[in-house]
């Protein structure tokens, strides 16, 4: 398994020099959504707290980095961590309210949705941050401003983000922290009875997850050069974030990556294919059907299935 992983990373490192720019773009999206999925996986997969408001963290992170860059001239390389920190603060607030008041299942889902929607509405109405139109980043091509003439740089940044988040999750997974989270997901009452401080670990999971997601916001902003509140804070982005880890296998290390490699190209190619004939919406119909099929036929996600095929059943 380890050699396979090293080989895969090596292949990904050399790929941009042989692929055309369209393929590179799709891979960038795969890595970026894989990264966001991995960040969500910590709280949504391992701890089993289904947040459908993670777009709010992307939004806070992105807006923070862009505003700092425009107003204070601060380089996004530092701004991204400020954005991550602010996202983590919001994550802590949402987590505190949800966990302290014992909101579970659908109630927690709604709390996260409501927070993201409040952020979206609030940001759309503050003219100082661009209002409903949002913010635009002017292209300078200056690496200090997180902008690059060569699209392949974005490729390596996105790859580093995805691998970095996966590294963080791999570390957490093997420690006590990972086992505590799994215990909370499987049976919170039992975990508490065994002396696990469930509140503390759920909070930690939420903070780490929202911090990483907030960092993703900077990449989003400076890769797309624009931030629109309805897109970056909207429920559709939150849904996109949770789809990949769940389709790949929530609460598994490679699930979010596998999910992203399955869903992102499907989404992009069908958008290209159907979009040319002016048939907007077809690709999302296909997406919805796929989602239904996964729930009915692969409820554990794709990764456990692939793993069984490759290395046999878990001992």
């Amino acid at each position, binding site marked *: 398994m380890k050699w396979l992983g090293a080989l895969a990373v090596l292949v990904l490192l050399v790929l941009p020099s042989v692929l055309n720019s369209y393929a590179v773009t799709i891979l960038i999206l795969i890595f970026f959504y894989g990264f966001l999925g991995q960040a969500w996986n910590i709280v949504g997969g391992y701890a089993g707290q289904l947040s459908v408001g993670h777009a709010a963290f992307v939004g806070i992170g992105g807006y923070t980095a862009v505003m700092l860059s425009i107003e204070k001239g601060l380089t996004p390389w530092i701004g991204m961590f400020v954005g991550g920190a602010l996202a983590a603060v919001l994550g802590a607030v949402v987590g505190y309210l949800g966990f302290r008041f014992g*909101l579970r299942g*659908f109630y927690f889902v709604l709390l996260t949705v409501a927070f993201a929607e409040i952020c979206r509405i609030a940001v759309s*109405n503050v003219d100082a941050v661009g209002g409903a139109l949002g913010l635009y980043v002017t292209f300078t091509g200056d690496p200090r401003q997180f902008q690059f003439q060569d699209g392949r740089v974005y490729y390596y940044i996105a790859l580093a983000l995805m691998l970095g988040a996966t590294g963080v999750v791999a570390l957490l997974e093997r420690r006590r922290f990972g086992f505590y989270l799994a215990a909370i997901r499987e049976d919170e009452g039992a975990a508490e009875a065994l002396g696990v401080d469930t509140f503390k670990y759920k909070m930690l999971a939420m903070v780490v997850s929202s911090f990483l997601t907030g960092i993703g916001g900077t990449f989003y902003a400076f890769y797309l050069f624009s931030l629109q509140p309805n897109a970056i804070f909207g429920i559709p982005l939150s849904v996109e974030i949770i789809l990949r880890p769940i389709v790949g296998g929530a609460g598994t290390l490679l699930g979010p990556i596998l999910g992203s490699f399955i869903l992102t190209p499907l989404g992009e190619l069908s958008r290209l294919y159907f979009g040319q004939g002016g048939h907007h*919406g077809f690709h*999302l119909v296909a997406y919805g059907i*796929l*989602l*239904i099929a996964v*729930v009915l036929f692969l409820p554990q996600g794709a990764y456990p299935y692939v793993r069984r095929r490759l290395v046999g059943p878990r001992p």
Partner: protein
Amino acid sequence: MDPTLVLQGLLSGVLFGGVYSLMAVGLTLIFGVMRVVNFAHGDMMVWGMYLAFMLASRAGVDPYVGFGVCAAALFLLGFAVQRALVDRILDAPHEMQILLMLGVALVLENLALVAFGPEPTRVRSALSSATIWLGPIFVDVARLVAFGVACVLTLALYLFLFRTDLGRTVRAAADNTYGARVIGTDVRRVYAVAFGVGAACVGAAGALVAPIIPFQPPTGLSLSVTSFNIVIIGGMGSLLGAFVGGLLVSVAESLGAVFLKPSLKELFSFSLLILILLARPAGLFGRRTS
């Protein structure tokens, strides 16, 4: 602040609230019976709107006459969705149920996009521009009729659940599925009927608002979120809670548009939701469960 403006906002909030109530009653019925949250609720409502649009533009049927047809069509859709999909995941974990319904929502929303395009649509009704003046404030007749019909339909649903045998069976299956099975109830059929009736509620609600507000396929998502808001505020599974909650949220949004600005109106209802979630998660009229 001009008092007539506030009174006007209050009145149109209450009148529009009837439709919100009907929509939320459908959601709470589905949840109360099956413990499944219908994430496609708003998208089903948008299909009700587009059906009303088709009826009006192709056959010249006024939405305030044709809402029954929309309700019947949505009943069939809800019945089919329950039979084909929801029935298989009743015992699955929450997140899987949510994902399945999100899948259904994506399919419904984007089929509407494929069929009708992204432009905002509005249905013409004979009542569209009729108003009655009550001193300084006016009553929008379309809203008044929508409110009346929505109240009658909610009452009819109440009578169905509490005065008919099939309705009593639905409530029995909701209260105690095992017990209902023991006495020979076909629970699967009851579930499908309940889902169908819940969908019929939004089918009618969609037809009733179609002449009042412009809509487009993504409208479904915000309607879903609004109906979640309402049932949480009123209490999940409580019919009375959904009815009162619908009026409350509608008035809150309407007054929010008066006091702040229209684009901020939802801020009120979301803040109300968070307060309720923290202070009284069972909602205003909900029974405290587990």
